[in-house]
């Protein structure tokens, strides 16, 4: 993975930059000591590490604004960082950049039950929002697996998903407004406690922009009343095909479950050994289908799911009889990554999305790739929305195995694109999938995306080296190459 060449001139001015930062934030909020910088050298994608030039931890919007204005004037790059749980390297430091940590933005500012929204600082964790409103029976719907640790600001940067997004949407469908500091230090507010503004949907493009457009300093999200009840059905199937067909049958029957997850044999075994969730071990795949809503609805839909599953040849079927049992069904799925991780010194977690109907075919091709590379792969899968998480097991101490695992991962993602899917469903492009962007997008596609970047950060100072394999200079992107009068358009009907 090649990162942009560090700017030696900026690194040479490190002491001066530290002094400038200490004039903006308290001394202890500027981290310059190598030992302390270590804590920031990577995010959740731990295969890539780089010490930041310095880390700055502001605590007010005004401080963020002054830091960015200084960096804008002095050509210093910024890498924004939330809780550092991202899985694609979006917060990987650069040797010549300030890592701007938002961890001190840790207060919830306003809980507005009347308008059913919460205004919060971005460093607050995803789960803390739910915890702040659950006494009134409310919750924040998107629930990435890392919700104990990941920050809401990071969720917006990555447009995070979670098992419930099939029914309740991704972050982008649940965020209502942000305050954001632009690279030149200006502060903008977009959206708020109202829905759609008739204007360019800046909120929509900021969400999922991986820290390339600005630094978010305040967030407004919608909260929902928790469903009255939830039940889960644990289903076992003799083949991946049968499990995939069951997913199609449930959706084809007009049911959108609260969550619908699939695991293959290897993932089932690993999870079962780790947390004893009670999964059947004699099946090729399991499905966990959760239905939520009023009891009358849940009972009714469970009955239908049961009939559909039997029709698709389910060999194991267990309906949760208590909330404890439902949570136990989920425990294996939620622990699947560490469970698989226990079986191997290292693993890579992929994140492609495919059309659901391609599942069995993709798993078959993946098995062939596994054989070709001689590396094991376990599959957990947000079956309802087609988001795959193949976990490739490898040992970085074995010569060349890391490269093999990466090549295997790239082949899986290319396969996802080949069958009409995408490179990443919820983890983001970051550095991890950056060089594969060309598999999905043409040069013109990416140039149009970068023109959006240019509207926010024409100097490319925010999080460079992430998402796009090549950053075109904005002046270059602005040019139009037209040849006057060359086109007679004989084919277009004119009136």
């Amino acid at each position, binding site marked *: 993975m090649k990162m942009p060449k560090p700017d030696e001139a900026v690194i040479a001015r490190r002491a001066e930059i530290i002094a400038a930062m200490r004039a903006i934030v308290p001394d202890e909020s500027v981290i310059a000591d190598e030992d302390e910088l270590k804590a920031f050298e990577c995010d959740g994608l731990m295969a890539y590490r780089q010490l930041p030039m310095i880390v700055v931890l502001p605590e007010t919007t005004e401080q963020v604004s002054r830091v960015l204005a200084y960096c804008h004037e002095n050509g210093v790059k910024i890498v924004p960082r939330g809780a550092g749980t991202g899985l694609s390297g979006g917060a990987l430091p650069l040797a010549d950049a300030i890592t701007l940590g938002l961890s001190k933005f840790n207060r919830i500012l306003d809980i507005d039950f*009347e*308008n*059913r929204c919460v205004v919060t600082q971005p460093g607050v964790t995803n789960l803390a929002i739910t915890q702040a409103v659950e006494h009134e*029976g409310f919750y924040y719907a998107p629930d990435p697996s890392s919700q104990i640790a990941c920050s809401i600001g990071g969720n917006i940067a990555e*447009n995070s998903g979670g098992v419930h997004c099939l029914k309740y*949407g*991704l972050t*982008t469908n649940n965020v209502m407004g942000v305050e954001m500091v*632009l690279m030149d230090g200006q502060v903008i*507010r*977009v959206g708020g*406690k*109202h*829905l*759609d*503004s008739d*204007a*360019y*949907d*800046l909120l*929509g*493009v900021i969400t999922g922009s991986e820290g390339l457009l600005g630094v978010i300093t305040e967030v407004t999200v919608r909260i929902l009343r928790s469903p009255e009840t939830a039940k889960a059905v644990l289903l076992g199937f003799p083949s991946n095909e049968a499990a995939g067909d069951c997913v199609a049958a449930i959706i*084809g029957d*007009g*049911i959108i479950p609260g969550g619908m997850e699939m695991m293959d044999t290897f993932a089932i075994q690993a999870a079962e050994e780790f947390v004893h969730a009670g999964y059947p071990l004699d099946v090729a795949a399991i499905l966990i289908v959760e239905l939520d*809503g*009023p*009891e*009358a*609805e849940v009972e*009714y*839909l469970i009955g239908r799911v049961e009939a559909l599953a039997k029709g698709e040849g389910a060999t194991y079927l267990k309906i949760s009889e208590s909330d404890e049992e439902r949570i136990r069904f989920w425990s294996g799925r939620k622990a699947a990554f560490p469970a698989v991780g226990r079986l191997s010194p290292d693993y890579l977690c992929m994140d492609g*999305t495919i059309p659901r*109907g391609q599942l069995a075919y993709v798993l078959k091709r993946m098995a062939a790739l596994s054989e070709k590379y001689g590396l094991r792969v376990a599959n957990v899968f*947000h079956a309802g*929305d*087609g988001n795959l998480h193949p976990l490739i097991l490898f040992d970085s101490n074995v010569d060349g195995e890391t490269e093999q695992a990466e090549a295997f991962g790239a082949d899986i993602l290319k396969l996802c694109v080949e069958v009409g899917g*995408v*490179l*990443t*469903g919820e983890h983001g492009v970051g550095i991890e999938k950056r060089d594969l*962007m060309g598999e*999905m997008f043409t040069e*013109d*596609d990416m140039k*149009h*995306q970068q023109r959006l*970047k*240019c*509207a*926010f950060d024409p100097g490319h100072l925010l999080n460079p080296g992430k998402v796009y394999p090549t950053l075109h200079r904005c002046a270059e992107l602005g040019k*139009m190459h*037209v040849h006057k*009068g060359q*086109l007679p358009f004989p*084919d*277009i*009907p*004119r*009136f």
Partner: protein
Amino acid sequence: MSDILKPETPEQVLEAVKWAASEQTPLELRGAGSKAGLGRPMGDLPCLDLSGLTGINYYEPAELVMSAAAATPMADIERALAEKNQQLAFEPPDLGRLLGGTPGLATLGGTVACNLAGPRRIKAGAARDHFLGFQAVSGRGEEFKSGSRVVKNVTGFDLSKLIAGSHGTLAVITEATVKVVPSPEKVRTVLIRWAQDGIYDHGGVKAMNDAMATPHEVSGAAHLPAALAKLSAVDFVAETGRAITALRVEGPGPSVEHRCRELRQLLGKYGATEELHSANSKVLWKEIRDVSYFTHEHDRVIWRLSVPPAEGSRVALKILEGNPGEALYDWAGGLIWLALRPRDDALAEVVRRHVDAAGGHATLFRAPAEVRQEVSVFHPLDTAVQAITKRIKEGFDPNGILNPGRMYEGM
């Protein structure tokens, strides 16, 4: 009458836009023209007539996704979906008649380009939340795409969001891909009939927000003051002569019955409650969706206000103080359709002052062209956001050939 260019394929759209870019000829983009009266008037420009781009290109009910050419009529799309018992969750409105034209013409591209959504917005999101991907030609005369045919996708910037609601000022959509969902098995509406006389806007908004704070997944929450209720084609609503608050519940039969019961119990304190079954529910929510109560007096100006829901009645009544007009509340009070007597300034200063105080946006949805020329149709932007908006426009359409001035003067 200006020139009309009528491409029939995406390739011809590309050629046409390339030509316009090279000649620096501004174009008015038009699907079926049902929303031609929306936005700032652009004068008499050559028209890029996209009505030849029709047809559903891809529809996989099991994948919950559909792709169609930009000018495919919504009627065709809804028919194809209904055959598979599916629908668009964002409940696209048909505002043709409200805008002084013919109903039933709206196209997929136009609906997405204006980011329109009906009453179900509060539960399911707007057009932008269901717009998964597109093929388009930017004002640079270059083809590009974004998004995909899968729901869960974070690959690259989400340009679908940018294009939704950009009113054709950045790119010509040639194909749009949208998420579809199963149609609910059952639809019912709980009605609160308010007492005989008096203004119940505050009560209606309070009742709607009470209902929204329950776990009963209300999928439509509207309040009709008595003067609007009496225009309804649903006898039950019209004949009471009273203000009506309506709450829609959708889903499997047993669930809908349970939730209606619970809601009626909760809301009984406000007034007598009744239930509308499927057929009447559909009529009522279509009226609300299409703002059909304001389609009769064509000279009135119509505002569309988006505000925090609990603030809805306060904002509307403050604006209406001393200014005769009527308010229809949708989205539990978060969406206000306001009809005012014709005025040269459309009362813009008063409307926007009260909307700004509550935190929100106001669009001058219908007014004579001369008024829309003078009054900002779209909510004025603050300096920094305006600068970003301008740079985005310049990036995608450097010669300003796509719907120039449609949203903002000189942009």
